């Protein structure tokens, strides 16, 4: 029953929308539910990245530390977002820190387990890569827009 629920939750998450049933079943084997209290650190910069998260409810801040500025939030993620892709890209270490801003519920997937399944099933590997590339592209565009500092010296 719990597995069926998890499969349904994964299937309803935007990141896995329209994924083949057989792939969904494979992924369910690597997934579990998780919750974080407000302020709880989900992962820290530099630590091994073996997991990734599909946020179901709540808000997560992706942070880094800058000398003289302290901890700075790069972006916040919420319901329907994917948190973390470093599990898929060598050297498999987190580049930023993630912290729950409020009570957050997510599905956590075992990236090491998934990497193995992607090696065995290249169709699944391609599908995951395609979806994660889309997320990375969106985040890259957002980061570029942030870099432009567009609100400087504009209209009244």
């Amino acid at each position, binding site marked *: 029953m719990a597995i069926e629920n998890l499969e349904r939750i994964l299937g309803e998450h935007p990141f896995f929308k329209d994924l083949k049933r057989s792939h969904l079943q494979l992924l369910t084997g690597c997934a579990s539910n998780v919750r974080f209290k407000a302020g709880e650190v989900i992962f820290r910069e530099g630590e091994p990245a073996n997991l990734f998260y599909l946020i179901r409810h709540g*808000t997560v*801040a992706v*942070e880094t530390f800058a000398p003289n*500025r*302290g*901890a*700075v*939030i*790069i*972006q*916040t993620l*919420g*319901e*329907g977002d994917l948190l973390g892709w470093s599990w898929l890209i060598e050297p498999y270490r987190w580049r930023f820190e993630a*912290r729950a*801003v*409020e009570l957050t519920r997510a599905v956590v997937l075992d990236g090491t387990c998934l990497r193995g399944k992607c090696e065995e099933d290249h169709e699944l590997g391609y599908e995951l890569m395609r979806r994660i590339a889309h997320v990375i592209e*969106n985040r890259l*565009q*957002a980061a570029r*827009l*942030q870099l*432009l*500092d*567009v*609100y*400087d*010296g*504009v*209209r*009244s």
Partner: protein
Amino acid sequence: MAFALEKQAVAAGLSDSMVPSPFRVQRVRKETYDTFTLELEPANGADGFPFAAGQFNMLYAFGVGEAPISISGDPTKPQTLVHTVRAVGAVTQAICKLKRGDVLGVRGPLGNHWPVEEAVGSDVVIVAGGIGLAPLRPALYHLLSNREEYGRIALVYGARTLQDMLYKPELERWRSLFDLEVKVTVDTAPASYRGNVGVVTTLIPRVQFDPSQTVALVCGPEVMMRFAVRELESQGVEPENIFISMERNMKCAIGLCGHCQFGSAFICKDGPVFCYAEIEPFFAKREI
């Protein structure tokens, strides 16, 4: 040349459009470190003038010059003109230094307006960036005072930091309304901040609307509007239903001088609000 233009203006009945009326500052409210909201009333005891959401006025700081400033007040309360001004140039700096009782010149209302009547029956998504919230506020006032005529209404607003946000008390009040979805984000924030961080376009997929029946109103820096339009389109909103407020340098503000030419249009006369479908071919052209 000047004589010819004068004759042209008189022939078109526009001579009054070039003469500013004196308005007295009734109240000044500091929004951010460089942005102020001024409430103005006619200095000669005359009535104010009606305006539509999205229109602008030319504000004249005597001895300094004129600047086009969007009207940011409530269209149902035309007696008081409300303008939110960011001090970025000589004229706007002079306007932002005005105190209660000071007088400035006003020409307007000018330009076209947000298509709030055409949006009746639709969901409405308002996307504002930085001071771009000012020209959109009258549209939101209109939508809220005619709430039953619209479907879902969402406001997404982005600013550089929390300190750069306009109308903070009003944003809080809007957030408490059950029939208005408000999402706010900042580009950067310290770890103690508990709100959204990221560019305003990332909020668009997070609000509820039916893309096939949505009218989107967008105002902010031009590059932000480009990204916002892309996101709205990727969500399924048709270009015909996306409206943006453009800005170029204006001088006469009545379509005579050509300073604000944008493709085949003049921003002051044909805009500032444009349907995206109509300007799509040259919207992102850097030469225009």
